[in-house]
């Protein structure tokens, strides 16, 4: 199961992702991220502290969102990645691609 909650802050959309991000649920995450981007909200912080599982299908969504946001002058920053998220990103060699913060306030304030 996947749960995605979007909180619209002044400069940033804070998106809390919980549960399992795999080929069965990646489209749900994609839709929710797309909702922010469709509103022109391209400064995104993803709280990934409660992501229990991430496969390459989920990783692809994160990367495509990053590409879109960067092209619009924004960015996708990761707050509190769970151990599984960190491991999968490192496995893919993509751990340096996203700015990562160990504190949500710092991540939001970084924009």
């Amino acid at each position, binding site marked *: 199961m996947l749960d995605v909650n979007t909180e619209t802050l002044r400069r940033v959309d804070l998106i809390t992702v919980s549960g399992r991000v*795999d080929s*069965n649920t990646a489209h749900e995450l994609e839709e929710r991220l797309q909702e922010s981007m469709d509103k022109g909200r391209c400064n995104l912080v993803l709280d990934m502290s409660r992501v229990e*599982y991430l*496969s390459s299908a989920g990783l*692809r969504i994160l990367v*495509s969102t990053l590409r879109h946001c960067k092209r619009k002058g924004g960015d996708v920053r990761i707050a509190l990645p769970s151990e599984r998220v960190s491991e999968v990103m490192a*496995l*893919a060699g*993509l751990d*340096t691609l996203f700015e990562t913060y160990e504190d949500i306030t710092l991540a939001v304030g970084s924009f």
Partner: protein
Amino acid sequence: MGRKASLTVPGRYSQIQRLCNFVAEGAQQAGFDEDEIFRVQLACDEACTNIIEHTYQGEDQGMITVNWRIETERFVIKIEDSGERFDPTDIPPPPPVPPPVDPVDDDFDIQVGGLGVFFMRQLMDAVTFSYEEGEGNVLTMIKQRPAGPSQ
């Protein structure tokens, strides 16, 4: 305690977690710790996702059978489908991403594309493929059991 087991499900994304949980049961019996069980599950997930995406080219086009067996030193997973021949091991691994990388670059999409097979190779000790006319594709993934495994 079972030393081998088999599960067949429809080729559907919603079934992959069930297959992963099934493989996790075997991996646990083989003596792997929580981190290694996660890696075995992820390899199985990537293999089954590839079957739906590339072999069946969509959901509900055929069945997927996952077999596992515990050998003295190895944990062996065999994943079978009845689709056209598709050898994921033919896919070259993505080139390493040297920092700094520009995700806006179009070439970057290609690098991310082959991640599933790359993961399978990284997470397991061996990944091999065979195809039998009338039988279908068989992907075999092997992981060495930890020293002092539970029996």
